[in-house]
């Protein structure tokens, strides 16, 4: 039974990395299943931002994945990549490209997802490593111009100065 809401934490270990950590009140084989089964991915991956209209998962090394989301605003966004490493219930390494007219597979980020179980609960970590080219794309995509880790490091200082 889900009795508490766990918070996702985002940290920026280096300028080109984003690390997301979240704990789930479920054993890791279930978290892994929800992460890698298309019908299940469709149920959660879009968050509150829209609906997943397509989730293709060829879960083997060298296999491809592609997700399409119909965002609430009415536009479609798609992502795809390739699996590089698969350790069932433990770890997945995959590439990821946000599909835009300009994007090529050279722009792929590499995600390392780990599932660690402790007392029936699972800690999920997603480490995203961006090629430097992506950093540049981020400028366009999000207004982020690098310096992310430092942005995070500065957060505490910001918090202090806002007191």
């Amino acid at each position, binding site marked *: 039974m889900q009795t508490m809401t766990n918070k996702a934490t985002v940290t920026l270990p280096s300028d080109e990395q984003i690390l997301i950590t979240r704990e789930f009140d479920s054993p890791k084989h279930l978290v892994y299943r929800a992460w890698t089964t298309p019908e299940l991915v469709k149920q*959660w991956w879009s*968050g509150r931002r829209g609906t997943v209209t397509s989730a293709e998962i060829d879960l083997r090394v060298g296999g491809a994945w592609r997700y399409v989301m119909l965002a609430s605003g009415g536009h479609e966004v798609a992502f795809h990549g390739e699996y590089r490493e698969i350790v069932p219930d433990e770890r997945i390494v995959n590439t990821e490209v946000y599909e835009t007219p300009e994007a090529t597979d050279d722009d792929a980020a590499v995600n390392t997802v780990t599932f660690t179980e402790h007392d029936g609960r699972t800690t999920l970590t997603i480490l995203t490593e961006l090629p430097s080219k992506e950093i540049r794309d981020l400028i366009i995509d999000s*207004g982020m111009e690098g310096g992310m880790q430092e942005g995070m490091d500065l957060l505490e200082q910001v918090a202090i100065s806002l007191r």
Partner: protein
Amino acid sequence: MTHAYIGIYGAGVARAATTADAFNAVAEPRRRQILDVLAGGERPVNELVARLGLTQPQVSKHLRVLREVGAVEVRDEGRRRLYRLNGHALKPIHDWVKGYEHSWSERFERLDVVLADLKTQEEGHADHDEQGDRDAAQR
């Protein structure tokens, strides 16, 4: 699956293309160093020069960029120019990270629901299995 959402979720804080903003200001390692030093409190410019091992003109150039985005403020005290950190100017960075975190939290909340279903199903199967075992034992 992950970073791409910076694109979508980051749109909320998208801004006009300009170099004069907090993100750009902290993208330069030396400027981050300056901010780190100033996080410890107000400092005169000559101390920043000494701490960073740069020339005064180099430090002044970085300080100018930081001042333009409001990340540092300056005041004169006698013959000294004192610089201090202004955290408010860095809030866009804070907001961006928080927005990203929030987006993932929403996604994970839905994943929680999926997982709760899976657990229920699994427990259901286990019950069936036990019932099956009992039935088999009785036969």
